[in-house]
């Protein structure tokens, strides 16, 4: 029983889910023109989409079919772990003419991951 529980725990950890990723604009040299923020929590999706797909994985019907086919034919890949919900962030930056712009950029932060 202990071995089975450990295996289940390991499998659940490798399942598709959201992971932390902080993007520091200084690291990519964008801090010269981005006034604020200095960086932000972007997150990323990673993990396996294996059978059975849990409800919280926001799986599409196609992902379920693909996973089912994968279970009988390993040549067909599993569904992909991708962002299913994204949110915007506002950025304050200097444009090429040194004018200050505040803009709301869509799809910059991963809010949720799922199998698609």
């Amino acid at each position: 029983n202990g071995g089975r529980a450990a295996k289940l725990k390991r499998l659940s950890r490798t399942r598709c889910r959201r992971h932390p990723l902080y993007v520091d604009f200084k690291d990519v040299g964008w801090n010269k023109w981005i006034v604020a923020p200095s960086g932000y929590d972007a997150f990323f999706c990673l993990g396996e989409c294996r059978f059975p797909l849990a409800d919280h994985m926001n799986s599409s019907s196609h992902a379920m079919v693909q996973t089912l086919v994968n279970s009988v034919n390993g040549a067909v890949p599993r569904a992909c772990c991708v962002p299913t919900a994204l949110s915007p962030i506002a950025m304050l930056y200097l444009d090429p003419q040194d004018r200050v712009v505040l803009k709301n950029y869509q799809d910059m932060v991963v809010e949720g991951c799922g199998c698609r």
Partner: protein
Amino acid sequence: GRQGGATEPDGSVSSLLSSSPTPLDPSLAQTIQNLLLSRLGLQSHPNPRPGAPVPQYIVDLYRFHSQQYHLVQDPHFSYPSQHVQEANTVRSFHHTESTSPSLPLEKRQTTASNNRVPISFNVSSIPQDERVVSAELRFFRGGGASPGPGAHRVSLFLSGSPGDSESEPTLLESRVLTRAPNTKPAVSWEAFSLSTELFLGAHAQTGSLSFLLEVTPLGRRVGHLRVRRSLGQDEHSWARERPLLVTYSHDGRGEALAAHGQDSWDEGGRVKR
């Protein structure tokens, strides 16, 4: 960036990432960066001059929008919820100052009539595919620039382009500013809403917008809004007081700025503290 998952004690993410490819080829990374900049509406990597002034109003707007209310510096800051309702972009413009080397600063300040000051803005940097949904012209009213006790009539005119001296200025708005005699000098901004049609015209023609601001004292005291740089005033201080044209626009992509944190301000746009 930094992947927080790498610090997780179970190492599960690290094990999943262990099969990740090696860092990208620099040229490929550059290509991806250019694609991203293009998605962000920029043609190239901006390279601003060091110390380029950032208007406090825009910083406060950003901080308010990001719900960093304690960092908003202007105690009278009011979130322009009406303007940003349909806008996902706010652009700020300082007026174009005369750079004629033959005219010293003090001379340039006296060439205009004492109570009529021309100010123009180069708005050509607004992308053609961006729709201006609202705009305002803001003047600093405070400290030494504050009107003295008594009323002043302030009139804003739209004038022709800088080279067009023949057309008559069109009155956009006229208002009376008053202040009680015994109150402390109020530091605030006076904002004039502008019609979005002005920007259609500006784009079609020279890419600039020219105004005339007329301030007429209705009593004996003379006072004015801050439209000229004082002799000896440093750039940093002037940047905080000079007129500011603010445009609110939408590029057709994504949510408006007003969509966030609307429950955090009251009907007047002030922070609920």
